């Protein structure tokens, strides 16, 4: 009796979690669509790299973290910021370059930060942030703590020396790092096989005495499961992991890049769109009877409202004060 009851409780808790993931992915999707719109309207400037198609990767990975864990990532960081729990308002305001943005309007789309959530950027140099993740992992170990440092990067980054130098150190020092390669098959306009001598990316972990997995990035459950195993390995006693998560970018590399053209065909993109992580997850939840179309529609409405609110908030927020140009170059505080 009691057990059945608590089992039901657990069930409903899990169900809520699962519906929550759907909501997160929907939020990311609608957020990016809106960001694209705002970019076309000139409300967002610079480079703007959307995450559409890769949502399950961020949600699945973040779902396994603790609040005190650390994340570093690339310029394609909107979705991951939202998945980590940063507000749509703070992120959209940053894209708008406003004082209310998560980086106070100084970082922009490529440099989202929220130190309170351990979300440590948003970095623009391909491969350049991978050693930073190793360094955060080093600090965790130095302090004999049990957090993990995770690092997202694209498959094109694994040819860069920074990737190899960082993984080698993570390997010899057994750092609590999870290196997450989001293999969306293209680095800008260059297909994986034209830039990378091995098709099987995760095998490069062998060079660094590191555990590895290949994961279907469109299947949220698979991402969660693989990430769970990686996190277990990373917590004391620490061991790093290289995850190759296979996914696909449904949109162009950035707002200035067409969805298809020189480097991939309309057909290829459409074929991949059939495995939209949001649709796959919705279908699963429906099949398990955890949600129905009506509820999904309502959830989508809610999410759209949240995104519209973020847009309005960003639009109405003030620009940074002119003096802000000169602050944050050096520390204000005295030496330690």
């Amino acid at each position: 009796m009691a057990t059945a009851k608590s089992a039901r409780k657990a069930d409903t808790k899990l169900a809520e979690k699962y519906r929550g993931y759907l909501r997160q992915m929907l939020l990311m999707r609608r957020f990016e669509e809106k960001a694209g719109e705002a970019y076309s309207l000139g409300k967002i400037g610079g480079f703007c790299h959307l995450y559409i198609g890769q949502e399950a990767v961020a949600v699945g990975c973040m779902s396994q973290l603790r609040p005190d864990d650390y994340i570093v990532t690339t310029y394609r960081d909107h979705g991951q910021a939202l998945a980590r729990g940063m507000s749509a308002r703070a992120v959209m305001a940053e894209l708008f370059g406003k004082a209310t943005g998560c980086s106070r309007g100084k970082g922009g789309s490529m440099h989202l930060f929220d130190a309170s959530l351990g979300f440590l950027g948003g970095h623009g140099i391909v491969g350049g942030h991978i050693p930073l993740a190793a360094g955060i992992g080093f600090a965790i170990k130095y302090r004999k703590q049990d957090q993990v440092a995770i690092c997202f990067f694209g498959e094109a980054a694994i040819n860069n020396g920074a990737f190899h130098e960082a993984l080698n150190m993570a390997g010899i020092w057994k750092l609590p790092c999870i290196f997450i390669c989001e293999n969306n098959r293209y680095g800008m306009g260059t297909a994986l096989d034209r830039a990378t001598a091995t098709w099987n990316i995760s095998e490069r972990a062998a060079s660094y005495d590191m555990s590895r997995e290949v994961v279907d990035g469109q299947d949220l459950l698979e991402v969660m499961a693989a990430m769970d195993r990686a996190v277990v390995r990373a917590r004391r006693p620490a061991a790093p992991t290289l995850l190759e998560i296979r996914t696909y970018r449904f949109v162009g590399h950035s707002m200035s890049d067409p969805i298809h053209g020189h480097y991939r065909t309309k057909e290829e993109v459409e074929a991949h769109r059939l495995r939209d992580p949001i649709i796959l997850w919705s279908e699963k939840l429906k099949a398990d009877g955890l949600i129905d179309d009506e509820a999904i529609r309502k959830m989508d409405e809610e999410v759209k409202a949240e995104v519209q609110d973020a847009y309005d908030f960003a639009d109405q927020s003030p620009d940074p004060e002119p003096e802000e140009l000169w602050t944050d170059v050096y520390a204000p505080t005295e030496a330690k």
Partner: protein
Amino acid sequence: MPTLTYRDALNQALREEMARDPDVFLMGEEVGVYQGAYKVSRGLLEEFGPNRIIDTPITELGFAGVGVGAAMVGLRPIIEFMTWNFALLAIDQIVNSAAKMRYMSGGQVGMPIVFRGPAGAALQLAAQHSQCFESMYAHIPGLKVVMPATPADAKGLLKSSIRDNDPVVFMEGEMLYNTKGEVPEGEHLVPIGQAEIKRPGDHVTLICYSKTVAICLKAAEQLAAEGVSAEVVDLRTIRPLDLETIFASVGRTHRAVVAEEGWYFAGAGAQVVDEIQKGIFDELDAPVLRVTGADVPMPYNKHLEKAAKVSPEKVVTAVKKVLYLE
């Protein structure tokens, strides 16, 4: 004379030099199939094929070194950096390999290579994507540093750089690619190391290069309206500096303002100031002032970015200072 964009002028120079010399090839990220991140190499893959237009992995250190190695055995590589910001990853190959090969080998191994790509800020690309590094490269003996401001100079200087037998750091500007101007057809060569007076004047010399040339020309117009006649000297080449042209102009105007997009500390402009005060100290009626980018990492917000950049207004203010008009 046909009117071309700066981008197409570069494209024409690449096309002509590759047609002229089979040892010339272009290597870099997205230069081929993608037609160039900024389309400077548009159509070249189709015309010259994948053996001479080579897409690389995102490994600046590695492919810069590949270029250096190919130049060691006599090829004439053009290595494109998607932007010079990323070339920091390759600077070891440029400084420790390319710039020193001839010297270390006692003159046995030449280094006919061009490193090129856009430098400086575009619009709202923030701190890591908006940097000027010409003063770093100009600091290095063995390198030449070229920074054209106009489509005609872009074509003429790129052709000269490709034919040059030494490593050339060739810096373009994303914000310049769409600018238009008349460009001589065919064999148009602008010699490395020659500045050009882009606008003659008598009261003050505005020394500039790359993006600050247009800014100084605007400033000169505003000043003209106020009765101040400013001469605009476009350096075109940062290393070696054309001291003759600089001294001749400042020797006449007795006043100078140096405008550069980059940071002030030990920027190329500081060297220009050093040369002027050393070369024609007695000709100076006022200190040489510099207008530079704000001494901060570039902010993303567009108003902050605008405030960080060099503007005609800032140049005009500096000119009035050296003329003691304020």
